[in-house]
């Protein structure tokens, strides 16, 4: 890993040549005399780019691991009967797949993007708390190790699903404790990362960049960070109660001792629903950067986008009960959660309409980042629609705990969060590496992923409607055909990601040639005003007001006073 990441983010050599001729930000290339080399560079890392790089590689390795677990699940489900695993190992696969993808892949990947891009986009020299940033990253590998080790302790890994519902999770073996400690570590990491992002965004913006003139990715990162600060401690509390119930004789979730198993679900989903938006909002931000760039038009309805993000964030605290429609709420609670959930469709709809209006009357080109952004838009809309179906409590009674739910959240999290991450990687890869990726391979990766994704997950809607429960290792015969299709799709989807890995490594090693400082002619945010690849230190002096204004005018966030400024 070290050699590739070294190349991904060269410490010294390349930026010497760029200093003078490559615009703003390049002049500070000589300031990094104290940056350690070798392994120390990564272990002692305080540079936001190095830390961002580590986050991204960590997330990708976790993505491959979680993906391998998913293929283990789909292989078993290819036909009825048990072929490869014992049922309890199957449960561990589904649990670890969920935990690793949510906490190990999607969240760290977005934190990595934020680390890399927020300082560049808002004209800050680094993150506000550089050493805490190091600590937030380095908590993650031990957390991942705990999850992996859990598979090898007596009784195996946690097998209660990523939601860890008691009393089942109280019943399980030591693997569950490993899972709980892993979640503690990842929660600490998230909280520290979020504090860093909030502080950086609120205090270190370039002159002239008021809050309502920030790039949309900065906005969604800010709101996401607030959500995480609010709910990560709640999750930590929930799993700690679980831990004490397991080992110290408390009865938070044990009815025999005066507790209530459903209490856990309330606390968990009070975290869990905002968590959904913690994974979705940064994706909205990424797409809001990519679509204007390749439509060569400013983002439509910037202010309403910001309001929509905030509205979604606030509503996300009031809808957790829709994950629990089947626990037996009184009618009033059922109605309250149903109405609040339906309400989320309004701001989400506003965002979708704004994105389409951004493309409308544009001058679009379809490079890989744009393809992934459009793919996101199409499939996220489908996921939103199935979400609307699920929001209706009476219909949810039929669909709760079935494959329909599995289909729904994979449309939102794979085609939503993951596709936006792919788009972001292709979009910023030239800035990170200084090289251009292979467009042909990128497009192949997109189309392959797009088709394989739908082969995998679309049939799951039908399985859920017909009544196939989720988290079962074996199924009745009438579900066979769609399960076979889904399994074939899953393996195709998995292989597509090897293509992605190859393309990224290929780009790091030179790609199809050096990238210009601004590879996308429609890109107007500040990160494109630094040299390519981005030098180790950027914006050690804030960008000038004139430069910031130039970008804001191009983004339609400020009016130009002179006609010639438009040109």
């Amino acid at each position, binding site marked *: 890993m070290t050699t590739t990441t070294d190349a991904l983010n060269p410490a010294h050599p390349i930026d010497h040549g760029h200093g003078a001729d490559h615009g703003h930000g390049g002049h500070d290339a000589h300031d990094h005399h104290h940056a350690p080399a070798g392994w120390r560079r990564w272990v002692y890392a305080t540079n936001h780019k190095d830390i961002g790089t580590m986050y991204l590689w960590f997330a990708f390795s976790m993505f491959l691991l979680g993906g391998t677990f998913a293929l283990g699940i789909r292989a078993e489900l290819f036909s009825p009967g048990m072929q490869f695993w014992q*049922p309890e190992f199957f449960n561990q696969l589904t649990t670890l797949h969920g935990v690793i993808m949510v906490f190990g892949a999607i969240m760290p990947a977005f934190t990595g993007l934020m680390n890399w891009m927020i300082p560049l986009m808002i004209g800050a020299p680094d993150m506000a708390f550089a050493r805490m940033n190091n600590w937030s990253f380095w908590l993650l590998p031990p957390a991942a190790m705990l999850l992996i080790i859990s598979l090898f302790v*007596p009784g195996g890994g946690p097998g209660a699903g990523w939601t860890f519902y008691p009393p089942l999770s109280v*019943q399980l073996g030591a693997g569950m404790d490993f899972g709980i400690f892993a979640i503690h570590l990842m929660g600490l990491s998230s909280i520290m990362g979020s504090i860093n992002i909030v502080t950086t965004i609120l205090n270190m913006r370039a002159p002239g960049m008021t809050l309502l003139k920030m790039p949309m990715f900065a906005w969604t990162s800010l709101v996401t960070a607030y959500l995480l600060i609010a709910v990560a401690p709640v999750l930590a509390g929930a799993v700690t109660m679980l831990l004490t119930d397991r080992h110290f004789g408390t009865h938070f979730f044990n009815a025999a001792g005066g507790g209530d198993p459903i209490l856990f679900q309330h606390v968990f989903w009070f975290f869990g629903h905002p968590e959904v938006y913690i994974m979705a909002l940064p994706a909205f931000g990424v797409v809001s950067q990519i679509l204007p760039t390749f439509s060569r038009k400013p983002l439509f*309805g910037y202010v309403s986008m910001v309001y929509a993000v905030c509205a979604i964030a606030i509503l996300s605290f009031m809808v957790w009960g829709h994950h629990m429609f089947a626990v037996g709420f009184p009618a009033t609670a059922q109605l309250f959660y149903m*109405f609040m959930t339906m309400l989320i469709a309004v701001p989400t709809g506003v965002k979708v309409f704004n994105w389409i209006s951004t493309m409308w009357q544009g001058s679009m080109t379809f490079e890989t980042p744009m393809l992934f952004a459009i793919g996101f838009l199409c499939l996220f809309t489908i996921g939103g629609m199935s979400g609307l179906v699920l929001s209706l409590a009476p219909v949810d009674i039929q669909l709760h705990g079935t494959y329909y739910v599995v289909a729904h959240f994979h449309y939102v999290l794979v085609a939503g969060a993951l596709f936006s991450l792919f788009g972001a990687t292709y979009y910023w890869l030239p800035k990170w590496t200084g090289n251009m990726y292979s467009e042909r391979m990128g497009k192949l990766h997109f189309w392959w992923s797009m088709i394989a994704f739908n082969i995998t997950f679309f049939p799951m809607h039908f399985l859920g409607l017909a009544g196939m429960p989720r988290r079962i290792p074996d199924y009745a015969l009438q579900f066979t055909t769609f399960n076979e299709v889904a399994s074939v799709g899953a393996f195709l989807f998995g292989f597509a990601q090897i293509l992605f890995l190859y393309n990224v490594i290929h780009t790091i090693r030179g790609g199809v040639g050096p990238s210009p400082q601004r590879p996308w002619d429609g890109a107007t945010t500040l990160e494109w005003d630094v040299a390519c690849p981005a030098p180790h230190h950027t914006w050690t002096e804030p960008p000038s007001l004139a430069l910031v204004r130039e970008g804001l005018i191009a983004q339609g966030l400020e009016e130009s006073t002179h006609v010639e400024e438009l040109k």
Partner: protein
Amino acid sequence: MQLRRLCAMAAACTPSFALAESPYTFQTPQSPIASHINDLHTWIMLIIVVVFVVVFGLMFYSIFKHRRSVGHQARHFHENTAVEVAWTIIPALILAVMAFPAARLVLAQKNTTNADITIKATGYQWLWGYDYMDYGFGYKSRLATPRAQIENYKDGAPPKSPLYLLEVDEPLVVPVGKRVRILTTANDVIHSWYVPALGVKQDAIPGFIRDTWFTAEHIGTYRGQCTELCGRDHGYMPIVVKVVSDADFKTWVTAQQAKAKAAQDDPNKKWTKDELLARGKQVFESNCAACHKVDGKGGGPFPALAGSKIATGPKEGHIHIVLTGKNAMPSWAGLSDVEVASVITYERNSFGNHTGDFVLPAEVKAARK
């Protein structure tokens, strides 16, 4: 209703699977609530399809017309208050239209009053117990599919029966056209009682009672599964509801009551070892073999009984572990004294264990105190 008929027609035209159901939508509804859910879903899907066509139509129109390769020049507009207000308010109105029938249906689902029959469904790891509260009997309902059909990795696995994993030894029996209230609870972990065709799903929570209801409109057998992850055999605890005529139900109840009486093992009965072993084998295979395996060899985290310290050591320890459970093994205190005694006798004298002990129901009864 019109829509439902259309759906049914569409379903009839598509290739059907084992249960002659459309594989693309809900199972054919068999209760008023399930029908309403079906109608609501169909109606929402229509709205969604219209919205979908409009949104995707606009988007793809733009993608094809407003591209640089056809020479389209970008127009630099970036806001329009009227349009933005419109697309906030119109979706809100559409949602309000959706919310109204949904809310009415929530109230209907939640109204569990005036039941004709009340049955308690108890989730166990991994079977269901049904208690007919009004008639004073109850029984357990277990997966009837033999393990051999499930374990494909063993050589010579027999072909799977058409009702693979959806068949039980004793189904829940209810009369047609009556309002049946189901009380759910659980013995160990959370389970969920789900019968799609009847439009019912209710979590079964240990220590708490929740309820739901249905009225089956037609005589027939309807199948569902546990829908809350409950451990190892979560996939192997189906729910089968047999809907019969009122007269058949009465006959069945009488027979069940008689059977319950007969099945109450005579506490003074003198059990022979062979009787206990035969009974024990039966109890073992329907309760214990899932983890410890039919041959007592165990597997994975589940210990072998063959030659185990507990199954060959003092019988007090053996009785204790069956009644209280340990780690992943749940307590089996829910079994009767005769069942516990017989299964322990069986375990101590099978799989190569030759303790020669035999445990009497009275010993189990004493150990429970």
